[in-house]
């Protein structure tokens, strides 16, 4: 589902996707930059928040810098008719930051459930992955954990412009 956004919304997105101004009246600053009225900017951002075009507004932690160095992409082969329940259960765990149903590419890639697991080190991630395996029980037909060894690029999503 796409939200209806107009060119003014897109201009607001372009100047805020990197962050909000750290000044007492951030929305007034954005409005001044774009030649808009502060109330118009706030109304538009509230509308985007209500419609889900903005997921949330706040602090985006850098988990590496905060000591969560063991990030593992756990991937699972779950029967298709069990994926919804499995995804909802695993996605609700507090150490899982992202949980998706994604397509398989057999035979190279048999996995259809992705759960990003965070821990302070690999041992902690491995322990949490065992916890997921215990929850899935017989619905887990195979899994792996892919640890990242290097960040090759990280610019963040540039949605507009």
């Amino acid at each position: 589902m796409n939200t209806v956004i107009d060119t003014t919304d897109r201009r607001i997105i372009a100047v805020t996707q990197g962050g909000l101004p750290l000044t007492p009246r951030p929305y007034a600053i954005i409005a001044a930059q774009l030649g808009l009225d502060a109330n118009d900017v706030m109304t538009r951002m509230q509308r985007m928040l209500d419609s889900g075009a903005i997921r949330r507004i706040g602090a985006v932690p850098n988990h590496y810098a905060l000591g969560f160095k063991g990030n593992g992409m756990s991937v699972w082969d779950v029967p298709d008719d069990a994926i919804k329940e499995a995804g909802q259960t695993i996605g609700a765990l507090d150490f899982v930051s992202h949980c998706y149903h994604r397509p398989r590419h057999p035979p190279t890639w048999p996995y259809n459930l992705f759960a990003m697991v965070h821990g302070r080190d690999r041992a902690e991630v491995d322990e949490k992955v065992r916890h997921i395996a215990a929850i899935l029980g017989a619905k887990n037909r195979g899994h792996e954990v892919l640890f990242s060894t290097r960040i090759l690029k990280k610019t963040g999503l540039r949605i507009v412009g």
Partner: protein
Amino acid sequence: MDTRDATIINQLQGGFPITERPYAEVAKTLAITEKELIERLENLLAEGLLSRFGPLYHAERLGGGLTLAALHVPDEGFDRVAEQVNHFPEVAHNYQREHHLNMWFVLATETAERIDEVLTEIEQKTGCRVYNVPKIEEFFVGLRFEL
């Protein structure tokens, strides 16, 4: 970073108000001044403990395309392929991972149609088969950090 910074990170991962003086409002709930909150956020950003402070947009809801894709890249050509893939401005993140599929990248495009075009270009440029794994369903996205 002290306990007050940890509280800020824990409590401010969402819900920042859209009002005239939002920092003042949040500062009040933390029993600190507006000025102190702004300074602490500046420091957390400068030290890299926060990668950003502001709205997190939902690319697909804005009409854009988003996907995760993987390649198997032979060791000897790895850095060259990384450079070729990173060269595309649509590649937002790219990670080396320990697996036969050893390069994983996130693609964000301004239109949904552009995803397939870029993936084809990446295949042609790198000579590596692209395994595209766009999300079929999202169960959870968010970070629930408790420091």
